[in-house]
């Protein structure tokens, strides 16, 4: 064990959130719960990325007091990556919800096991 677990508590929380989201994805048979678990995994990864770019005492990456030094600001690269990621995650969520509505219209259930059972029945 490295000794940085307590100082890296933000990363630890991000990892735990990722695990909780993954557990939600695995445990629930309800489609909407699964999508929520997926969203929690998303935000956990964004938290991890943004935390990696943080510098203690750094300012937000906007020019303040005319200082142009790297050490004065936090790292802007993870912010840019996460900014695009958040918007993409919305479109992915919308796509998954649209598929859920279509599946409900066909099988009249949200339970994924029942859905696959009904799909097998249709193949007969």
């Amino acid at each position, binding site marked *: 064990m490295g000794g940085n677990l307590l100082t890296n508590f933000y990363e630890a929380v991000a990892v735990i959130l990722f695990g909780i989201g993954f557990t939600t994805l695995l445990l629930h048979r309800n489609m909407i719960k699964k999508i929520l*678990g997926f969203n929690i995994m998303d935000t956990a990864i964004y938290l991890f990325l943004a935390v990696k770019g943080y510098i203690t005492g750094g300012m937000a990456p906007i020019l303040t007091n005319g200082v142009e030094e790297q050490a004065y600001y936090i790292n802007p690269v993870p912010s840019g990556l996460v900014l695009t990621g958040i918007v993409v995650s919305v479109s992915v969520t919308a796509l998954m919800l649209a598929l859920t509505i279509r599946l409900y219209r066909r099988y009249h259930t949200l339970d994924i096991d029942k859905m696959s059972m009904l799909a097998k029945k249709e193949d007969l």
Partner: protein
Amino acid sequence: MEVFEIILLLFLIVCAIAVSFSKNLLTTIIIFMSYSLIMSIIWILLKSPDLAITEAAVGAGVTSVLFFVTLKKIRAMKEEDNDEQA
């Protein structure tokens, strides 16, 4: 300041677990909404205001509204099914 951060992070974990355990779907989505709001406060603490604005508008606003509309659609279809059966 660190105590405040730790409280917020604990709130995040509690919200994530509550999403997994609550039975009512509407409650689940409202809990997820509060999770997104807490996340946007954490972005401000991490000095990324761009992310805070985006997360508050997109994560807490549009995503939750999309979930609500989906639930509403599904309830309407459920009522139709019940009417047909009755």
